[in-house]
């Protein structure tokens, strides 16, 4: 199966409509920390890709409302999340680290090696 067909199949298997999650971006000297709010989504259901300096997030939310119950009121949607972020020029997309905990996806994106702060050793 080629990539497009696989991709399409994957997209169609997503149970819910996709919405843009809340995203927080913080920057320090070493790099960026991107935080996505994706309640209901576990580690194995996150699909994170980098392509052409774009960081793409898609999820396959397995969270389901309780079976045989009638929904009486809804204050938050049970949905999938999708968002693409353009990475800044200074970022090094080859060494991205990501983790998921308690419905929060944290992506650590370091800056390029030559932009990292470093201490200069003083020679005698």
């Amino acid at each position: 199966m080629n990539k497009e067909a696989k991709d399409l199949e994957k997209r169609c298997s997503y149970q819910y409509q996709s919405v843009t999650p809340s995203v927080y971006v913080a920057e320090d000297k070493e790099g960026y920390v991107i935080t996505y709010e994706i309640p209901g989504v576990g580690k194995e259901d996150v699909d994170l890709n980098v392509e052409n300096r774009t960081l793409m997030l898609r999820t396959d939310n397995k969270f389901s409302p309780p079976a045989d119950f009638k929904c009486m009121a809804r204050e938050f949607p049970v949905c999938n999340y999708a968002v693409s972020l353009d990475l800044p020029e200074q970022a090094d997309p080859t060494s991205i680290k990501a983790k998921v905990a308690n419905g929060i996806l944290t992506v650590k994106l370091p800056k390029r090696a030559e932009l990292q702060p470093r201490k200069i050793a003083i020679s005698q």
Partner: protein
Amino acid sequence: MNNDKFFNISPWNILNEMLNAERPFNSMFRTLASRIEGRFPPANFYVSDKAAVIDFEMPGKNPDDVDIKLEPQAVVIEVAPKDKAKEMSESGKRRIELPFSIDADKTKAVFKNGILRLEMPKSESAKLKKITIDTEN
């Protein structure tokens, strides 16, 4: 002592169901909207003949940050993150009235991926009982 300000919401009527039609929108706005309305943490309400289920959305919180108290026919939930410095360290308290009295001993709370599910079975006394009618001649 009881001067805590929290909203007393009874979500179990049809009007609320109509107002809360399924309408996914940006979660940042949603969180903001729920804060303004005093609905934090946001919740989804489900009911069946045997139990009531409430899902609370709280990404980034730990089970330690949450305090649940049961009243015979209401639940009080308080979210107060221990790590105040953290971004997204919202806190809130709300009291939710239930459509029937619940069995506190059989109530279960499960926290998974930022969603807390509270499952509260109906108490025996709240279940429908059939009354047999005696005839007197």
